[in-house]
């Protein structure tokens, strides 16, 4: 992996281009593939440039939270596989992977993309738990957007397994009906490097950025934000970033709806 330094990156960015020739407001090519793993209730692979993430959805029957006895829920996890980046290490989930999965979770939860009430089997006793597991396969920057897009693609492709109330067993071979997913909260990450605002940071940009803002939006409604990076943002910069995120969510939506 080439390690360019900040001065060199700034020299290039000051010419209003990026190291890979993109314009500041351009995403890399996005590819979505669904149904990549048969035994999962839903699955998808997303590539943004060379960044590749796969997501699988499994359903389990569990007990509801006491404060929402008639609602199912989602549980999002992320694992940065060691194959994805030479810097990833084995062991318990890193704080970065915890953050990535929590931001995916918040986009889906806060936008009420899934009707949790429809995941209730027996009030107070049994509900569907939707387990969304994210795996990084190749990290070339901006895994956040790839992960959230893959999660949405996998969810929209999820079929409900059959639950037998008599035997209290789940039949994973007999699937019918779709998961009650009604909205697509698209996450868009924007990097600030020096004075520049860039959409979809690549690996070098991500390593050298001052600040990053991930925005989950549907249409012009914003449902989740997360600032990353140790630098700061000005209000005007936040304004620019929000505008770009809203602009970009339409395109990603078209991609996902084609699936």
């Amino acid at each position, binding site marked *: 992996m080439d390690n360019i330094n900040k001065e060199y990156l700034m020299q290039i960015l000051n010419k209003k281009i990026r190291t890979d020739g993109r314009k500041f407001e351009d995403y890399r090519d996005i590819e979505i593939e669904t149904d990549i793993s048969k035994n999962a209730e839903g699955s998808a692979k997303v590539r943004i440039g060379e960044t590749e993430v796969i997501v699988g959805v499994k359903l389990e029957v569990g007990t509801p939270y006491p404060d929402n006895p008639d609602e199912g829920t989602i549980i999002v996890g992320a694992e940065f596989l060691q194959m994805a980046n030479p810097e990833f290490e084995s062991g318990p989930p890193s704080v970065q992977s915890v953050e990535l999965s929590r931001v995916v979770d918040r986009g889906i939860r806060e936008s009420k993309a899934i009707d949790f009430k429809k995941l209730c089997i027996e009030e107070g006793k049994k509900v569907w738990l939707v387990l969304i597991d994210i795996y990084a396969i190749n990290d070339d920057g901006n895994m956040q957007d790839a992960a959230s897009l893959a999660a949405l693609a996998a969810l929209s492709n999820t079929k409900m397994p059959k639950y037998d109330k008599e035997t209290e067993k789940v039949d994973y071979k007999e699937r019918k009906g779709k998961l009650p997913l009604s909205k697509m909260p698209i996450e868009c990450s924007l990097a600030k490097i020096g004075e520049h605002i860039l959409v979809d940071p690549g690996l070098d940009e991500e390593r050298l950025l001052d600040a990053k803002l991930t925005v989950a939006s549907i249409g012009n409604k914003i*449902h989740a934000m997360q600032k990353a990076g140790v630098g700061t943002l*000005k209000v005007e910069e936040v304004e620019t970033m929000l505008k770009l995120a809203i602009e970009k969510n339409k395109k990603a939506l078209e991609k996902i709806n084609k699936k």
Partner: protein
Amino acid sequence: MSYTKRKDGRKFDEMRKIKAEVGVIKNANGSAKFQIGDTIAIAAVYGPRNLYPKFLQNPEEGKLRCNYNMLSFSVDERIRPGPSRRSKEIGLVTERALSPTVNLKEFPNAVVDVFVEIIQADAGTRCAGICAAAMALADAGIPMKDLVSAVSVGKVGDKLVVDLDKSEEDYEEGATDMPVAILPRSDEISLLQLDGEMEAKEIIKALEMAKKACLELNKIQKEAIRKKYKGEGK
């Protein structure tokens, strides 16, 4: 869906009552307590001290490491002690909120550890923790270019509000929580998160409200620091 009046009678842009105190933990190099309404945070700073394991040491600059934790009894339903996914993430965003102010170049190879504990929670705990941590860093004499202030703003029903309490966060017809940290001297944002639903123009307006509230907070934090050191060195 109109939210006409806040339960505790506050104006929509008014914060809860604030108390700040510096030097609350003797063993620490710096410490502070910050209370906003019924949310209480304490913070302690240890360091700069040697960073281990050694391979983590950086000869060019030091490291700021923040740990956020809620005491098990700080909320209605007991929290299982020990780190959670949530507390790890908040530790990380606390680090980012404070980092831009700390001159890390002054302590190469070393670490400054910040420990934030939430004693009592009524929403806005990460912001209260950041306020306490900034004061504790100043108390520890860590070189900083600004004193960070943080407050949660957002939307309750149809109104933009400052400093949501738990009942507002749980408002039945919908609430959006947006924690913000500001460097008051330069007006820059070092923490920004959002959960809920807002439009871009509302977010910008809420940011302006947060800026104003943080200026007020900053005075209180500075006053508390001054109070401790008044009379010293005479």
